[in-house]
């Protein structure tokens, strides 16, 4: 074997190993015990794949390449290390958008090269474009189609994810809605497709396509990503991000096909499938369809009058609450979005530890869509140091609530709303919930009468066995800790 061919075999082998390590790494995510090792191995595979790519035969622009990598990796690494755990959703959106943008950019480079080569060949032998094409263009028809489709998807994912990032970061709080918006969006999308299709057809017929079409195709694709994401409410962003994650995966797979790179195809498809599944799970746990999220008239639907909730809110002070739990046998802590907002996870875990030292059996009960991202609560609790064997899934803990003396709800609202089981007219009717209402006593920490994500009243707060502990999550948890400590003096 000659040197370059020997090298590209090595590169192929490394890509292969990397692809296997990615799958392996994701497989190890089936348990928190093995997950970290998995991602480290996947990271090693990735590093190796990147390094060997430099040695591919005929690579140019190495200076630019190294500079771009150093800047890109450096910035992301720095931001990623520093960002607080509560900002994870927007970080995922940001990094995902970058991947989509990269896929679109790859598509652009390949299309430009194809077109330039075609034009050149046609200038040389204008009489017979077919032969000129055969000797010049390096993209077959399938590759050409996938280059366009991948670029379209990648571009949508790019700008869409950036808007999602901006919304979650609080830079763009409003939903931008205007009349006929859906039709305008549809028009943008159709125009993007039309430009792409025109250019594509020219390419398939071995005529160079007009540069203007290509530019318009990309501009419209990018615009559609923005237009599509603008009307969606900030709180729906996680579902949207998960969808864009799947789309980026697909775009990467398609551009991988264009570049004949199996590792990209496989990694992209795996992510595409994973993201699709995760999007479905999330939508299901929120009791909504993806269409409802995307073309969101959420809350506006309500087929009838919601049932009246009667009863009064009965407040409790922190000391009494602390005493109640100190002498309980079993306590379940049910965190929600409010815990994330208040960054109360550390204080809550301090409180739980004190209870455990006193011999109370404490469990954390987590709803799959508590917070604003699937698994959101788990990450925050893990950050605070809560061991994952104290954390119970909804399905596991629900039958146990009748045996629980005190359920401490902190900043959760929709995920514990019994209306989801009882009121057919409620927008959350049918959504699986944590059966907190079955516990012997319930204490709810929240700041006031604020509603949850779904914007509806919560019957739990008015139940006979519920007491309200008003205050910011972190402050209230601090008072509970203080209350417990005075008991020991």
């Amino acid at each position, binding site marked *: 074997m000659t040197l370059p061919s020997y090298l590209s075999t090595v590169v192929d082998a490394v890509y292969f190993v990397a692809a296997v390590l990615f799958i392996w790494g994701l497989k190890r995510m089936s348990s928190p015990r093995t997950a970290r090792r998995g991602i480290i191995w996947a990271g090693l595979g990735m590093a190796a794949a990147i390094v060997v790519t430099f040695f591919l035969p005929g690579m140019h622009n190495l200076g630019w390449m190294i500079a771009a990598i150093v800047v890109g990796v450096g910035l*992301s690494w720095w931001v990623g290390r520093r960002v607080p755990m509560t900002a994870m959703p927007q970080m995922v959106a940001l990094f995902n958008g970058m991947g989509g943008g990269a896929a679109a950019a790859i598509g652009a480079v390949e299309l430009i090269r194809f077109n330039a080569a075609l034009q050149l060949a046609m200038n040389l032998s204008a009489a017979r474009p077919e032969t000129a094409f055969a000797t010049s263009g390096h993209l077959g028809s399938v590759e050409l189609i996938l280059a366009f489709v991948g670029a379209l998807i990648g571009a949508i994912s790019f700008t869409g994810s950036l808007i999602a990032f901006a919304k979650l970061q609080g830079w763009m709080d409003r939903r931008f809605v205007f009349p006929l918006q859906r039709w305008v969006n549809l028009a943008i999308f159709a125009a993007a497709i039309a430009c792409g299709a025109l250019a594509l057809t020219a390419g398939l017929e071995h005529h160079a396509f007009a540069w203007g079409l290509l530019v318009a195709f990309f501009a419209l694709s990018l615009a559609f990503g923005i237009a599509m994401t603008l009307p969606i409410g900030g709180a729906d962003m996680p579902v949207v991000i998960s969808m864009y994650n799947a789309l980026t995966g697909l775009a990467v797979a398609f551009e991988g096909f264009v*570049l004949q790179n199996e590792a990209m195809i496989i990694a992209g498809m795996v992510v595409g499938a994973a993201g699709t599944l995760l999007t479905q799970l999330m939508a299901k746990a929120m009791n909504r369809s993806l269409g409802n999220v995307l073309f969101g008239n959420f809350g506006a639907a309500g087929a009838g009058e919601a049932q009246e909730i009667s009863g009064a809110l009965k407040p409790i002070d922190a000391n009494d609450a602390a005493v109640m739990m100190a002498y309980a046998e079993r306590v379940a802590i049910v965190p929600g979005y409010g815990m994330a907002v208040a960054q109360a996870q550390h204080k809550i875990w301090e409180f739980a530890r004190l209870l455990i030292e006193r011999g109370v059996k404490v469990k954390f009960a987590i709803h799959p869509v508590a917070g604003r991202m*699937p698994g959101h609560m788990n990450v925050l609790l893990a950050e605070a140091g809560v061991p994952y064997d104290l954390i119970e899934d909804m399905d596991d803990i629900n039958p146990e609530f009748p045996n629980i003396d005190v359920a401490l709800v902190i900043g959760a609202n929709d995920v514990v709303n019994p209306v989801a089981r009882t009121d057919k007219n409620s927008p959350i009717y049918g959504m699986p919930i944590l059966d907190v209402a079955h516990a012997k006593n319930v204490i709810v920490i929240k700041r006031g009468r604020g509603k949850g994500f779904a914007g509806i009243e919560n019957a739990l707060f008015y139940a006979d066995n519920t007491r309200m502990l008003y205050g910011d999550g972190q402050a209230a948890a601090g008072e509970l800790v203080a209350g417990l400590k005075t008991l020991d003096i």
Partner: protein
Amino acid sequence: MITGFLALYIFVLAAFTGYEIISRVPVILHTPLMSGSNFVHGIVLVGAMVALGHAETPAEIAIGVIAVLLSAGNVAGGYVVTERMLEMFKASRPAASKDQAR
């Protein structure tokens, strides 16, 4: 050369694999899973490097640099964030020591 049907086979098998593997990830790890799969599609960096490496005109080079920059950000950010999250997941002490014994 990957031709039509081979590509289809690879597409479909990868999708099956991804779907099956991911459906075993417990809810507790769904956030790291999201950022982890985000990291995995960071392999697009390799493609961006190839695109830039073969770019010739200034326009191609400029877009290629953007591709490399963005995908480098994707891969590094995805990794750091995932690793940071997973690092935090710990079992309580007794369970942990049992794990080590294995």
